[in-house]
């Protein structure tokens, strides 16, 4: 692998390799001495055009535990005020000798552009681009699912398992990465959202089941896991641009509470990429239940990011 930009172009073999490698990384993180010398002398830049403390510290921890040097670079800018250009930033990073750039950007395709424009040579890891993708999040979700639901998981995918993704599919890069990856790994995908929050054309897809209420989805499927997406309150309601009438109505139709959770099979797990809106898309009972793997997702995130950095950076440059 040269870059990790999206899950659309990630092969099944590479996806499983990342998950298997992450499993070994996770094992090292249970030791007393958690730091590995593997990426000594390599420089990883966390380039964040958008604030995301959680993602940044996860990548930072991953890089540091592999002994890479980490530079955090917060660039100003938004879709409204352009600020420093991606190109100039890339040229700066190139001059600093960045071996890998972990990029979070408000613009969809920014990581892709960084990887293909010729502005810099380093490896690019997409840490979330606009409303497009967030591949390491999908990989850590898949890793968490595999760990809980597949026995002797090494080398295996998610064949035959069924997962629901609930909420703002339209704007969610988490959903944008999870759906293709879950399909690649052989899982069944159930999407639950108000029609206003579905991407154009998704209802035409025959490989995805779509429901407009959570109750319908729970009636129709034996779920092995359910992923609740974060509702961006500020974006979702008010004015003529609201995607649903009120938070209360959203919770009534799409919120995961204890009763709905108990309608899933006993083994089914509850995921959330965080940060949660307790009481909106997920109740405290569901979030804190033994089925919830939400905290574990965070630690698995470090392992998956270690694996991704390892696989991108540890090999010889010429072999790519």
């Amino acid at each position, binding site marked *: 692998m040269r870059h990790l930009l999206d899950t659309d172009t990630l092969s099944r073999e590479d996806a499983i390799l990342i998950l298997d490698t992450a499993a070994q990384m996770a094992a090292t993180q249970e030791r007393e001495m958690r730091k590995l010398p593997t990426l000594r002398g390599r420089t990883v830049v966390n380039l964040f055009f958008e604030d995301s403390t959680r993602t940044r510290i996860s990548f930072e921890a991953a890089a540091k535990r592999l002994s890479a040097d980490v530079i955090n670079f917060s660039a100003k800018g938004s*879709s409204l005020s352009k600020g420093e250009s*991606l*190109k100039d930033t890339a040229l700066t990073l190139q001059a600093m000798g960045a071996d890998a750039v972990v990029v979070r950007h408000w*613009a*969809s*395709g920014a990581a892709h552009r960084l990887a293909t424009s010729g502005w810099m040579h380093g490896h690019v890891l997409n840490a979330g*681009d*606009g409303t497009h993708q967030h591949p390491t999040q999908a990989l850590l979700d898949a890793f968490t699912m595999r760990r809980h639901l597949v026995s002797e998981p090494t080398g295996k995918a998610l064949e035959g398992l069924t997962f629901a993704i609930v909420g703002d599919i339209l704007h969610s890069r988490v959903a944008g990465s999870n759906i293709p990856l879950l399909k690649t790994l052989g899982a069944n995908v159930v999407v639950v959202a108000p029609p206003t929050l579905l991407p*154009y*054309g998704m209802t035409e897809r025959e490989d995805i089941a779509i429901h407009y209420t959570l109750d319908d989805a729970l009636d129709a499927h034996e779920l092995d896991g359910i992923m609740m997406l974060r509702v961006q309150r500020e974006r979702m309601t008010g004015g003529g641009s609201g995607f649903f009438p009120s938070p209360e109505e959203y919770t009534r139709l799409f919120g995961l509470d204890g009763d709905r959770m108990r309608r899933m099979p006993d083994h089914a797990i509850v995921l959330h990429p965080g940060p949660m809106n307790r009481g909106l898309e997920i109740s405290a009972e569901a979030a804190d239940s033994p089925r919830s793997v939400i905290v574990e997702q965070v630690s698995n995130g470090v392992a998956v990011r270690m694996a991704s950095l390892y696989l991108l950076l540890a090999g010889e440059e010429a072999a790519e």
Partner: protein
Amino acid sequence: MTDTATAYVIENVSLYGDTRADLVLKDGVIASLSAADAPEGAVTLRGEGLIALPGLVDLHTHLREPGREDAETIETGSRTAARGGFTAVHAMANTTPTADTAGVVEQVWSRGREVGLVDVFPVGAVTVGLGGTQLSEMAAMANSRAQVRVFSDDGKCVHDPLLMRRALEYVKTFGGVVAQHAQDPRLTEGSQMNEGLVSSELGLAGWPSVAEESIIARDVLLAGHVGSRVHICHLSTAGSVEIIRWAKAKGIDVTAEVMPHHLLLTDESVRGYDARFKVNPPLRTQKDVDAVREGLADGTIDIVATDHAPHPDEDKDCEWGAAAMGMIGLETALAIVQKTMVDPGTLSWRDVARVMSEAPARIGRDGGHGRPLEAGEPANVTLVDPGAAWTVEPAATASRSNNSPFGGIELPGRAVATFLRGVPTHLDQALEGVRA
């Protein structure tokens, strides 16, 4: 230009691709269709293999001057147009300052005259500052030296239906036309590309077809209601073609234009997030491409215009969301029409003369352009070599910007000479070599 006195004879050229003749260009007019009438000292060009068309007219060009001379100037844009076979261009009003007063349109017009490579017809803004709230002084622009007849807020839609009605009615005073940039602003807030399966995959906010079609539907109904003519800029969707077809069948005085890039490219091009493919209205689907080709073939769509929209590198060499919309197209337009319409057999060269010269000149009320290739007519002539295949190199353009989406694409032919009132404004080196 210096050699206004020189006469030119183009021997044995194919007029409109179907009639053999000679063209004698003298004193600004087509003096004769027989080389025997050539005056002493005339420069003779061999016309074998070439097609003569009336000089091309672009109803939709952005020359960027005044205001964005870093992207294009009237001079560089005029040269680019001449190289593309154009003898007239309509310069859109979204400059800085906006072309919403007689003063600005006269400045553009007279600068065009000074340069003298094409006739630059300024387009006047419909509303002050393209603000969409107050009509600009359109009559003053119409009565200025620039004689403006085409009015457009292009870049923005005249969205307020009442204001649009008033504009449609008002331009009747001087035989003008409102050229509408059909884009519902609310339906396209934040939009980055065509709304479809590709936009969903790429996570880019969609620009739905219906945002174009709903405005076109409204405006043809308004034009019909008030008995005015309306022109639809850069029509891009299959649904828009249907609406125009319906409106024309109803007898509504509507004309429509399509862009070369909408005849050739689809939203699949966006997959690499290369901002050279970012344009407004966006590249659509293959179904839309097929429909606009069909609409152009059957006359539903009247003309091809370029929407030549120069942008400097820094506005394109960046992330998609930060990039400017638009692409240059004056030098590639004719060849793309050949590739997409003529070579497949859906348009004849006589049809090309209609959609790229006669009809746009008629819509724009451009006296002296789009005239027949006959003795006594103005010597505005384009010579096309339909067999001169070439590969587009964006950096080789005469434009000050090189944001062409066609880089690396092979095109089948090109304009090898352009005459504006008998004066060559573009003469291909290869052609110079065959001076008799």
